[in-house]
């Protein structure tokens, strides 16, 4: 490979790519690499330091039984966890169908018209709900949002701190009784509320609507099976956490939050929305709808900075719904409520003060401090966690795992601490008044009523999985996404009970194993970035950006420079950068890039000087989004510092830095790390991810805190996520990656990632022009092929090549980012030479097809590129209307004879889907019509 590239050695290649003034000279000082066996052995001892108690703490998190058929075939299956976000919809129909099931399930359970494909967590979903309210209802000028005083504390802190950035007045109170202000934009309430009580929402909705406001409701999906859902009571937005639908607690995540609203607000909704469209032959096909709302198109005007859903977790929850069906969910919900009612009855009979008159699964009990103290002791002896919101309050939230003996144990804790209580065989129908009981049907679609045995379920999962292309099938050379191996040994511990069954708010003494891992991971990330303080809280890269910007704001504020609110962002930046800046209440000023894709240093200097009194920071990706190590980076960062600004480095391209340079070396003060890119967390088919931030010493005091756990700096900003350490369980994956590769292995991975990219460049540069290169004509870890000349000459564009690659068994590279009309390829270090060659051969064969179009051997419109991809149903149809052969359509290169991946639909009609928006499972008649057709 080095010979093809023309470099003598790997280190010589690295030296020629990475500018000398930022190159690391000493190896990273990290613990020695461990073998897989040694790592897993040691991790078992770390896991043993976590204690799996029964946690009846609620707060939006509940223990659940992940059906084994889903655990094995989805959660632990690379077919489901390795694919990317379904941008290439033709090879993602399986998870798109499942995500559509999720949307259908959520919208029907909540009683709303549309739901999105999930958000990061309940707290940020609540903040997004307020964002929607403001976009829809705010006229110019002041606006007030009322937040109920019975919202979970962590949800409340995230929601209020985010809304404050939008220049909104927040009032806390009881929206059922308080006077509503004249400039009311909307109200956020929670039901079941923070005390476990069911809120009568209809009168609140009427009051809010009467003054022109909107009502957002945080709710519990399982409660919705039994209780009149918010949508039937006039809610305009409904959010919550779908975790208890089969997703392990994982000490905080990852889970799928949900977001549902009215159809008329769908264009104001955040996040991914899956929609139904048709393919080129008119067959039903799924795709991501209304993408123009999103940051990659709308930048600072986007509905949110969110780039990702929690696809893997939403799919687990959707399969949980498919497996149990409406009757099963109703049964689970009824059982949970019945247990709660029996417990309430027993406690009442014994004289305990249970104060929430209505409830679903949570009881709020008050007693004197001494009694609560005794209760705590008796529950700790039994290894049971309750929630203690105050010294004289205890809350008990039951879940589907609770059985008769658990219930007896819970009661025994109370009996030991106070009045003697006895469990009755059946509870009274107390807690859920008849008028609050749900009567409407939900999840009536056949998909939720057909897969209730393990055999059927296993086959349904497999049937969907086969439609999708993940890393278990082929290389996914997506530029800027870093689709590297998610090694099985890194993945295994995620579902070990000592890691997966911990409630996020258990006392730290029960999570010592986790905290050891957090410390070691923070240390490693600090060493790798050269930035000494780390927050593991942000749940995605975008959330990391947001957190980093708030830390910078807090720093300026602490120095009496709160007026610094201008962010410089290069033209070439990811769309999330300006979207995050807008969310943080900062003003974006764009810096030009030159024709080689580098920041125009003169323009940067001019703008930094022009805004020097208001300059907050620069947001810069390094190596650049064009895949080049810009030689002037240190000068760029120094310029910002000279003018009083901070430097935020977007860590999207960190895979080219580890061990060879660092954010600190280029002069950055903050960076986020996409653990799902560089540090091996799988993409999950569109989430989860993790975006911790690393900061310089002067910013450490401001790292985000949390109301329910000790974390963050001495002057911590408000939390940016629901859980103190984000999606804690998947931090294990990055931890494993770092421990099993060690300093040498990770540095070599960086070098091989650059080797692979430059090898592809060397092989394909003659076929497709490479847009940007750095010194010595090399690229970093990714490269951009320009399809615009081909398009001008033959009409074949970047989309045609992307779709044609599917016929060759590949996922397309990144299309039209960062430059329209191009393909960006990132092979990562994980791909063997054979796979790189197979990809290069495919690209060269496609180049030959384009030439055939140019010379007229292939028709300009009837050719295998324009009609790609070709599903088996088309290639084997009796009618073959094309001027090229079936063989050329499906088997253009011989290697495909040995292994062929078949897309299941032909090219999807995107405009049709957005013009005829449908975001739930199509009615059954649609399927019948299709089968007839």
């Amino acid at each position: 490979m080095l010979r093809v590239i023309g470099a003598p050695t790997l280190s010589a290649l690295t030296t020629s790519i990475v500018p000398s003034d930022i190159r690391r000279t000493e190896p990273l000082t990290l613990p020695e690499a461990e073998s897989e066996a040694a790592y897993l052995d040691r991790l078992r001892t770390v896991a043993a330091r976590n204690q799996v108690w029964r946690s009846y703490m609620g707060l939006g998190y509940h223990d659940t039984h992940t059906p084994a058929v889903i655990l094995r075939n989805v959660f632990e299956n690379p077919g489901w966890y390795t694919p990317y976000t379904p941008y290439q919809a033709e090879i993602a129909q399986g998870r798109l169908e499942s995500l559509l099931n999720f949307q259908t399930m959520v919208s029907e359970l909540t009683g709303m018209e549309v739901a999105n494909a999930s958000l990061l967590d309940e707290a940020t979903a609540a903040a997004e709900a307020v964002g929607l309210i403001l976009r829809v209802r705010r006229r110019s000028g002041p606006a007030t949002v009322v937040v109920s005083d019975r919202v979970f504390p962590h949800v409340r802190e995230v929601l209020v701190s985010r809304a404050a950035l939008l220049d909104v007045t927040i009032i806390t109170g009881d929206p059922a009784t308080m006077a509503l202000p004249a400039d009311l934009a909307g109200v956020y309430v929670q039901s079941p509320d923070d005390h476990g009580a069911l809120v009568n929402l209809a009168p609140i909705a009427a009051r809010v609507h009467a003054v022109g406001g909107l009502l957002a409701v945080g709710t519990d999906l399982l409660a919705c099976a039994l209780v009149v859902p918010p949508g039937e009571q006039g809610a305009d937005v409904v959010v919550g956490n779908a975790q208890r639908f089969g997703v392990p607690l994982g000490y905080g995540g990852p889970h799928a939050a949900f977001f549902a609203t009215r159809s008329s607000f769908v264009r104001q909704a955040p996040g991914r929305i899956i929609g139904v469209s048709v393919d080129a032959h008119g067959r039903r096909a799924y795709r991501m709808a209304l993408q123009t709302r999103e940051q990659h198109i709308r930048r600072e005007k986007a509905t949110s900075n969110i780039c990702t859903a929690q696809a893997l977790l939403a799919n687990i929850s959707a399969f949980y719904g498919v497996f149990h069906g409406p009757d099963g969910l109703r049964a689970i919900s009824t059982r949970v409520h019945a247990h709660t009612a029996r417990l309430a009855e027993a406690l009442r009979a014994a004289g305990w003060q249970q104060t929430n008159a209505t409830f679903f699964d949570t009881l709020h009990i008050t007693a004197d401090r001494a009694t609560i103290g005794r209760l705590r002791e008796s529950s700790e002896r039994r290894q049971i966690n309750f929630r203690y919101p105050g010294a004289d309050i205890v809350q008990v939230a039951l879940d589907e795992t609770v059985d008769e003996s658990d219930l007896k144990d819970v009661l025994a804790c109370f009996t030991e601490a106070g009045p003697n209580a006895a469990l009755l065989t059946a509870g009274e129908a107390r807690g859920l008044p008849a008028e609050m009981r749900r009567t409407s049907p939900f999840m009536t679609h056949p998909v939720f009523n057909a897969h209730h045995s393990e055999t059927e379920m296993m086959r349904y999962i497999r049937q969907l999985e086969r439609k999708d292309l993940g890393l278990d099938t082929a290389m996914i050379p997506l530029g800027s996404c870093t689709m590297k191996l998610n090694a099985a040994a890194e993945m295994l511990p995620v579902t070990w009970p000592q890691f997966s069954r911990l409630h996020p708010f258990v006392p730290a003494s029960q999570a010592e194993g986790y905290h050891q891992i957090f410390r070691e991971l923070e240390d490693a990330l600090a060493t790798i970035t050269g930035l000494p303080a780390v927050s593991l809280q942000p749940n995605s890269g975008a959330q990391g950006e947001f957190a980093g910007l708030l830390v910078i704001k807090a720093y300026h504020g602490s120095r009496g420079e709160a007026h610094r609110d201008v962010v410089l962002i290069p033209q070439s930046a990811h769309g999330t950068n300006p979207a995050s800046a807008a969310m943080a209440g900062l003003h974006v000023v764009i810096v030009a890039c030159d024709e080689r894709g580098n920041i125009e240093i003169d323009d940067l200097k001019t703008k930094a000087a022009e805004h020097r009194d208001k300059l907050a920071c620069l947001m810069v990706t390094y190596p650049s989004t064009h895949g080049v190590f810009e030689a002037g980076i240190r000068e760029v960062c120094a310029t910002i510092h000279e003018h009083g600004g901070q430097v935020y480095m977007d860590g999207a391209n960190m895979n080219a830095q580890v061990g060879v340079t660092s954010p600190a070396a280029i002069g950055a003060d903050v960076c986020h790390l996409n653990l799902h890119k560089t540090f091996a967390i799988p993409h999950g088919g569109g989430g989860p991810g993790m975006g911790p931030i690393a900061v310089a010493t002067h910013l450490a005091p401001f790292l985000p805190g949390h109301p329910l756990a000790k974390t963050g700096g001495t002057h911590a900003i408000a939390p940016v996520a629901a859980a103190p350490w984000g999606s804690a369980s998947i931090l294990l994956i990055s931890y494993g990656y770092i421990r099993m590769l060690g300093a040498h292995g990770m540095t070599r991975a960086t070098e091989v990632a650059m080797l692979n990219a430059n090898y592809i460049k060397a092989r394909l540069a003659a076929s497709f022009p490479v847009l940007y290169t750095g010194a010595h004509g090399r690229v970093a870890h990714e490269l951009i092929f320009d399809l615009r000349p081909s398009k001008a000459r033959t009409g074949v564009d970047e989309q045609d090549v992307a779709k044609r690659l599917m016929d060759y068994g590949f996922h397309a590279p990144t299309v039209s980012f960062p430059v329209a009309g191009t393909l960006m390829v990132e092979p990562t270090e994980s791909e063997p030479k054979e796979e790189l060659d197979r990809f290069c051969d495919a690209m060269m064969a496609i180049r030959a097809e384009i030439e055939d179009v140019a010379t007229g051997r292939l028709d300009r419109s009837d050719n295998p590129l324009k009609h790609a991809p070709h599903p088996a149903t088309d290639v084997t149809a009796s009618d073959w209307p094309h001027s090229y052969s079936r063989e050329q359509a499906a088997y253009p290169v011989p290697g495909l004879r040995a292994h062929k991946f078949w897309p299941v639909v032909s090219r999807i009609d995107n405009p049709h889907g957005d013009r005829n928006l449908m975001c739930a499972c199509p009615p059954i008649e649609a399927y019948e019509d299709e089968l007839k057709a």
Partner: protein
Amino acid sequence: MYPTTLKYTKDHEWVKLDAAEATVGITDFAQSQLGDVVFVELPEVGREVKQGEMFGTIESVKAVSELFAPLSGVVTAVNADLGVHPEQINAKPHEAWMIRIQASAPAEADNLLDADAYTTLTT
């Protein structure tokens, strides 16, 4: 190719003036840049707009653009048909009108481009 009976803005709207009534749409150049139009968000009848002020948005599969009022006045009519058939904007951009404005200052039309000037702007 741009009709001389219309006036144009630099933001790619066209306007047809009939006494003080202005009919407004987007140009062929604008629709070709946007690609397949999937959605148009238009104001309510009765809304007052100022010249150069945003009155709506237009959305294709890959882009969103804001629509700017070519003249000041009150919106008197909105083409509801575009809600159902936004593709008309791609098919017949200079016929698929969006709103009508009762112009409060028709002399503002002097700030607009004629067909020649607009052609120069877009080529």
